[in-house]
């Protein structure tokens, strides 16, 4: 029995046999609350059913930053272990080892299939108004004219709000809101100037390793690219907001960063952060910095027209695809100096990209779309890359994990242009791992070596890296049998961020009219897997998303599609057993999957396609060049 009377730390409240966790990390469908509950149950020697989570909120939760970067198990898990240790001593309890390491099912799955699960789109509040906003058609677009009276006269319209270049409508029903928005859209004219040419990129050396190496016998070079990629969540960005009569703001949001959003909302509305409460409510799938924060500003901006009334605002699919930040297009130039025996002497990796971080909470002005479009607009903060010590952005996974004698890694950051770039699952690591691991395959092929053996020879210092490669290869029966005509097998590997999980992927593809992936074999080392099936879900999900990006997606192409069920291959995931410290799993499989597919295409057809997506047109033109 736990001692009577509630005991608490910053994150934990123990009342009888029940523990309530106040956690600043939010549940996005990645199962973080389940994994953290397993840690707490073991640390306090309690049944898992006795561990409960409060919905994260700025008024009650510790500020644990943004739920991003595959860091929640590492960071929040460590913080909880520490506090549990204090409580355990105070309460005279014994830790157990029942739950950590078990594949505990996520409770949200049961509530989802029964239909009971509530997303932010489903929250009902008394007196709820429905809002829609109309943003300019492009960055810097200006309002030329609008017929507000015609919108105001529609049934159910409570208020129409025009503030600089931002327009909004409040109605008493969801359907009337759609009708009012359609009317607003058709009654407005915009003035759009062509955007100014982008400034020169800013170049910086990310990492350099020098050594006295001999003169190269030859140099290999190749240029790789990936296009803009949209988050493309199945549900739209959504928020609720309510102002009190005394000027306090409450926001319900599916943001990844409750406190960051609170700070920028306070900036945008010129109030103190203490006057803003942000409460987390689940949204549709989150894969990085999407429109969640922007729609929260829009809701608060519109709700200010009717103090006391809560407002729900949902972005349309058009808003989402036009205005939500996307993962930026990137170009990666690779070069390698080889000696006369094909041994690698020096490696060069140059990445061109817009910044990958435009999240709220970090700049002098709000990083919230609508706040740049009002009559008193804030300046749009520059999009940046975080320092490599905290994961980097464009340069993530650009520094080799192999024991090359010398290298030079440079990042060339393009200045902000008309499109918004920000963090999309794995940031620069997707393009960098795709490029570097494709290039490794090219070097191995150029020197007549097996790509697995080549990698292992350069990973002697990293036994955990070697092990995931060997295990993935064993699962796939690496090149042990001849591949049928048009079929190929390829490999990709990376240690995510160079500090996170080790992941190796072997892909089997068939290249006919279209490139199809038949199977992925994935081995991953995340240290101690708190919930092994949860790790498998994250690794599988990341791999499926990466297949979709690799084969099909380009946010600049209106015909771009997402992967369909009949295109998803068999995926076998091996989570290595380990007692080493736990590492995140959410982003580790994406880059290696892209490289494995591209390398399998080369194995199948003998051609390199270095630009994503690996479309039929690109494969055909690569074959034409090869003739």
């Amino acid at each position: 029995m736990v001692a009577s009377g509630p005991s608490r730390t910053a994150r934990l409240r123990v009342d009888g046999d029940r523990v309530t966790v106040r956690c600043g990390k939010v549940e996005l469908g990645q199962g973080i609350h389940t994994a953290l509950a397993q840690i707490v149950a073991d640390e306090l020697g309690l049944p898992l059913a006795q561990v409960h989570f409060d919905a994260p909120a700025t008024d009650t939760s510790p500020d644990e930053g943004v739920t991003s970067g595959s860091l929640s198990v590492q960071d929040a898990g460590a913080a909880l272990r520490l506090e549990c240790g204090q409580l355990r001593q105070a309460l005279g309890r014994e830790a157990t080892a029942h739950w950590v390491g078990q594949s505990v099912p996520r409770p949200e799955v049961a509530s989802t299939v029964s239909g009971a699960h509530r997303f932010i789109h489903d929250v009902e509040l008394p007196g709820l108004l429905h809002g829609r906003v109309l943003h300019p058609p492009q960055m810097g677009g200006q309002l030329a004219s609008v017929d507000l009276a015609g919108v105001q006269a529609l049934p159910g319209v409570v208020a129409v709000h025009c503030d600089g270049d931002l327009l909004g409508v409040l109605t008493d029903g969801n359907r009337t809101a759609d009708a009012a928005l359609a009317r607003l859209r058709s009654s407005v004219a915009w003035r759009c100037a062509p955007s100014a040419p982008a400034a020169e990129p800013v170049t910086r050396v990310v990492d350099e390793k020098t050594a006295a190496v001999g003169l190269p016998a030859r140099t290999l070079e190749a240029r790789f690219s990936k296009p803009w990629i949209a988050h493309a969540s199945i549900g739209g960005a959504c928020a609720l907001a309510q102002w009190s009569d005394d000027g306090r703001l409450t926001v319900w949001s599916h943001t990844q960063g409750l406190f960051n959003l609170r700070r920028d909302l306070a900036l945008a509305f010129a109030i103190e952060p203490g006057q803003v409460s942000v409460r987390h409510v689940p949204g549709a799938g989150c894969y990085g910095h999407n429109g969640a924060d922007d729609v929260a500003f829009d809701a608060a901006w519109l709700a200010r027209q009717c103090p006391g009334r809560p407002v729900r605002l949902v972005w349309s699919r058009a808003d989402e695809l036009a205005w939500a930040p996307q993962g930026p297009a990137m170009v990666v130039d690779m070069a390698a100096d080889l000696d006369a025996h094909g041994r690698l002497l020096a490696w060069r990796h140059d990445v061109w990209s817009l910044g990958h971080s435009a999240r709220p909470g970090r700049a002098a002005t709000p990083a919230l779309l609508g706040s740049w479009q009002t009559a008193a607009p804030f300046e749009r903060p520059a999009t940046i890359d975080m320092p490599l010590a905290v994961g980097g952005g464009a340069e993530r996974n650009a520094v080799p994990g192999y024991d090359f004698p010398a290298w030079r890694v440079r990042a060339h950051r393009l200045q902000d242009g008309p499109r918004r770039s920000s963090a999309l699952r794995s940031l620069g690591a997707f393009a960098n791992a795709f490029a570097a691991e494709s290039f490794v395959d090219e070097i191995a092929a150029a020197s007549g070596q097996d790509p697995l053996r080549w990698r292992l020879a350069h990973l002697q210092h990293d036994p955990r890296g070697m092990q995931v490669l060997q295990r993935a290869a064993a699962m796939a029966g690496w090149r042990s049998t001849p591949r049928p005509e048009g079929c190929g097998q390829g490999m990709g590997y990376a240690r995510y961020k160079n500090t996170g999980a080790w992941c190796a992927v072997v892909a089997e593809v068939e290249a006919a009219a279209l490139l199809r992936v038949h199977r992925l074999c994935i081995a991953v080392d995340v240290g101690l897997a708190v919930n092994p099936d949860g790790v498998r879900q994250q690794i599988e999900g990341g791999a499926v998303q990466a297949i979709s990006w690799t084969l099909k997606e380009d946010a600049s192409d209106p015909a771009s599609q997402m992967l369909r069920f009949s295109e998803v291959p068999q995926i076998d995931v091996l989570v290595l057993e380990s007692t080493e410290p736990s590492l995140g799993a959410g982003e580790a499989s994406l880059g290696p999957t892209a490289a494995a597919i591209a390398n399998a295409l080369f194995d199948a057809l003998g051609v390199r396609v270095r630009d994503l997506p690996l479309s039929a047109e690109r494969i055909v033109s690569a074959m034409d060049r090869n003739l």
Partner: protein
Amino acid sequence: MPAVEFTVNGQPVVLHEPPSARLLDVLRETLHLRATRLGCGEGECGACHVLVDGRALAACNTPLAAVAGCEVVTVEGLADDAIGVRLQRAFIAEQAAQCGYCTSGLLIGATALLRREPAAGEAAVRAGLDGHLCRCGAHPRIVRAVVRVAAESLSA
């Protein structure tokens, strides 16, 4: 406004709403059946699928008038459906959801699929679910869950 009569999850409903109203809005707002989700709003993603006389239809582009006299089933009613309830259990057993936003539509789509083809194999299940998108990448588990139910009916 003329009445539109139909049943939802076995219950008779009489509504006085415009015949052009979106079935999705009627379900979510008038009837407070919130588990049917708005996805793309254009019938492309499958998130809003409901059963109409046993067939899966996109509620986002189905007008109310189209379901007059029909039996409509949403996820909230699947527990009373012999196939639906087995799919719900199989989705839990396979942990076949991440964010869960596409799940309602997929359960409906899979129910319609297994009504047509109770012992569908894996390829048929994949093809049968091609009208649904899932952005989290839960596809392998969703396919396993549906194939599991199909295999049960084969051995039953």
